[in-house]
């Protein structure tokens, strides 16, 4: 491992549930792999071969934390988790997710950069990490319990300062959209990782650390923190909400911005009077409703109306809590309401002989519990909408595909499972390209460009570049190198996409918040402060490196983090898909049918043969150094990135190009 004097601990924990053995190994070289996304991909490539399924003992689930975690670097308290996710559709895919809370910082204080879990326990157990002391404990008494009761029992047993990540019944029963919950509702949520822990028989991870994170240059580091905090203090929307009332918590260690979080007391039904730190964003759709409806006609003349989830008021809040307690992603309401609601409008009020009552909280309560326990029809719902449709074929196929399909890798389309949320051009094109080359809903690690569309007056597509504000055009030039990046159309979108993919890797490797980094625009603590600085969009896109250098003592600048490090990681993640799943251009193009639906505001379609999108994909592959026909990273590109062994391993799999053409 390369020399460093702070940030990293240099130690990685490995837990083998088959052998019930725990070992410590060296953290892969930070100079080559930077942090979590790189380490996790390396473990995925080296250890999760073709033929391994998400619920197999051979699958790995990796929890890791970047060099800034546990420090006071703004928003740095996040944990990145990667595994072969059962949610991937049509095939499980190697996927990453992240969560806030205190778990990551505590893992670092215990002395570890990361934690790999492999194998399968012969009886339910939980992992207890107390600094050097790492043991597997009996969890038979916790198996079957909800998240809240489990967390409370473990805190009572081990101490209030122990940090806990746990699954609920949904994870135990391998529901494909089960979550891993920490601190009651920080979640590895929509990625669908809960079932992986469930299959391993690991109910929870309990961690307590009393050690520290070394800082290479403490004075310089505090100076960097002051500088970056001053840039980023606003969080989402770049304006903080200090008038939160009491109590109010931010979602991660070292973040003080209550973006859209709030705390609500739980009902007594969970056997606890816990306060719930609720992440409002999509969670709140159960209570107050979700994003708009969608109405359109496809190129093929298919008419579609996808209703807006209306929300259920106060009982909806209780349902959010129930979903968290069962360990189901709270995005489920949005996806399933849209599908079942659209069926209702088509006169289909029953599913497999069972009535659907979307405005009845009791129906939803029953639905959540049955899905989490895979009872009756809940067993089919638990497979996710795409697989559910494949089995039952209720309603038109294009309806199900519009909400969740192979093109969206089995996640809700657009913006993290909100079923759909058409954006103005060029954000629509950007989103489509990201989906095409991803393994999950992509927005969780690439919010930043989408946020710019607020400056457009979302959801309007400008008719002419002259309608686009000058500061936004200047920002595009400064950050992406061209004003065309924010013009309608796709002329420069491949560059924007590559830039954000790299920056997502860097952010997930530090580990920082996606709503704040990269700092393309500065933030403000209050509306007043923002008004006083009207018009300025100045940020600092090198903020990660500004924090990284004094923390670790490693002299890396942001351009080196982008290329070759982040580029190397993007390529390695792609190679896992290529080797394990035969990922090819056809898979990437599965995004096209969705992309061809009209835009919300101007009703335009792509051409029937989608040559515009195919050309964009060509330009993206060229920029990446990937083969246009196969979509695979070329041997030359892999060798250039120092991935010679990976290149060699792929060589026998390379098939004659003729066989792969469209």
């Amino acid at each position, binding site marked *: 491992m390369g020399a460093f004097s702070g940030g990293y601990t240099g130690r990685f924990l490995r837990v083998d549930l088959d052998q019930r053995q725990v070992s410590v190994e060296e953290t892969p070289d930070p100079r080559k792999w930077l942090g979590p996304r790189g380490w996790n991909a390396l473990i995925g490539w080296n250890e999760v071969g073709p033929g391994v399924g998400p619920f197999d003992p051979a699958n790995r689930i990796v929890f890791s934390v970047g060099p800034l975690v*546990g*420090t*006071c670097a*703004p928003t740095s*308290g996040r944990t990145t988790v990667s595994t072969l996710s059962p949610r991937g559709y049509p095939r499980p895919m190697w996927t990453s997710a992240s969560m806030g809370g*205190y778990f990551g*910082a505590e893992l670092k*204080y215990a002395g570890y950069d990361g934690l790999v879990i492999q194998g399968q326990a012969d009886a339910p157990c939980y992992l207890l990490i107390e600094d050097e002391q790492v043991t597997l404990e009996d969890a038979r008494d916790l198996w079957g319990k909800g998240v809240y009761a489990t967390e*409370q029992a473990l*805190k009572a047993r081990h101490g*209030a300062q122990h940090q806990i990540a746990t699954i609920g019944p949904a994870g135990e029963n391998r529901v494909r959209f089960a979550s891993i919950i920490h*601190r*009651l509702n920080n979640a590895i949520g929509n990625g669908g990782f809960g079932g992986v822990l469930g299959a391993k028989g690991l109910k929870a991870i309990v961690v307590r*650390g*009393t*050690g*520290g*994170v*070394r*800082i290479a240059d*403490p004075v310089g*580091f*505090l100076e960097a*923190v*002051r500088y970056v*905090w001053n840039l980023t*203090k606003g969080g989402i929307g770049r304006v903080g909400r*200090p008038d*939160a*009332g*009491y*109590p*109010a*918590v*931010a979602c*991660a*260690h*070292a*973040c*003080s*911005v*209550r973006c859209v979080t709030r*705390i609500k*007391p739980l009902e007594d039904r969970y056997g*606890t*009077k*816990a*306060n*719930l*730190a609720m992440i409002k964003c999509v969670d709140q759709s159960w209570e107050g409703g979700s994003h708009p409806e969608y109405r359109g006609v496809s190129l093929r003349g298919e008419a579609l109306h996808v209703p807006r989830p209306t929300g259920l008021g106060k009982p909806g809040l209780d349902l959010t809590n129930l979903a968290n307690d069962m360990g189901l992603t709270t995005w489920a309401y949005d996806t399933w309401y849209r599908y079942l609601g659209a069926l209702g409008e088509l006169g289909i009020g029953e599913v497999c002989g069972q009535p659907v009552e979307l405005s009845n909280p009791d129906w939803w309560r029953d639905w959540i519990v049955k899905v989490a326990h895979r009872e009756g029809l809940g067993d089919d719902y638990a497979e996710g909408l795409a697989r559910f449709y494949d089995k039952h074929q209720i309603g038109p196929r294009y309806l199900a595909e519009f909400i969740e399909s192979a093109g969206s890798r089995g996640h809700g389309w657009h913006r993290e499972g909100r079923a759909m949320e058409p954006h103005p051009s060029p954000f629509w094109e950007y989103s489509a390209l990201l989906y095409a080359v991803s393994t999950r809903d992509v927005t969780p690690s690439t919010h930043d460009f989408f946020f710019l569309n607020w400056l457009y007056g979302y959801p309007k597509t400008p008719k002419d570049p002259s309608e686009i504000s000058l500061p936004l055009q200047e920002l595009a030039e400064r950050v992406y190198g061209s004003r065309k990046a924010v013009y309608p159309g796709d002329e420069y979108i491949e560059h924007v996409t590559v830039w954000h993919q790299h920056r997502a890797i860097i952010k997930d490797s530090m580990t920082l918040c996606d709503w704040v980094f990269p700092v393309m625009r500065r933030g403000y603590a209050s509306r007043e402060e923002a008004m006083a600085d009207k018009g300025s969009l100045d940020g600092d896109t090198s903020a990660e490196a500004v924090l990284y250098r004094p923390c670790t003592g490693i002299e890396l600048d942001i351009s080196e983090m982008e290329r070759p490090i982040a580029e190397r990681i993007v390529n390695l993640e792609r190679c896992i898909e290529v080797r394990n799943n035969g990922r090819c251009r056809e898979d990437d193009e599965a995004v096209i049918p969705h992309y061809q639906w009209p835009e919300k505001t101007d009703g335009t379609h792509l051409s029937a043969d989608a040559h515009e999108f195919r050309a964009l994909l060509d330009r993206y592959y060229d920029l990446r150094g990937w083969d246009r026909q196969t979509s695979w990273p070329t041997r030359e590109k892999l060798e250039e990135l120092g991935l010679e062994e990976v290149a060699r391993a792929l060589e026998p799999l390379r098939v004659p190009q003729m066989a792969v053409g469209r």
Partner: protein
Amino acid sequence: MTETFVHENIQATSPARESLPKAKGRVVFDPHWCRTCRVCEVVCSIAKEGQARPAVARINISFNEFASVDPISATICFQCEDAPCIAACRVDAMVREARTGAVVVLQDKCVGCMRCQKACQWGVPKQHPDRREALKCDLCSDREGGPLCVEMCPLSGKALKYEPDYYTRGNGDGRV
């Protein structure tokens, strides 16, 4: 160690207290503004021990999601006027710093017996996890700019405030 013992111990050493410097300021914590980022813990430990390590921080923040009352709280010294920790110390390692009025631990004298912790109503002084030594807030008395945690708190002046005249302006009572 019984309460009676501590009490007697305070009584026994109290005559010396007239000559000690008086309480002046303290850090004031307001849970209504705190977002539980715990940056204060980290910067305290960086300043005092050179690494980000809450276990040795002289301030700690707790967010207890299971507490229906006061889920957000802080553990930090009030630097109270009637500091029983000073009296409880049998090796004279606890002294009042003249400029800020902070009660500070003299590292070279402290033997880590933790009598100070037992004497404190809130149990604020804590034991160093690696050394036999008590740790408590000294208001960064060696620093011109006041306590670093207050300066670095993202909600500085709201969640954490330094009031250098808290006990001298006439309305201090050592409680939040």
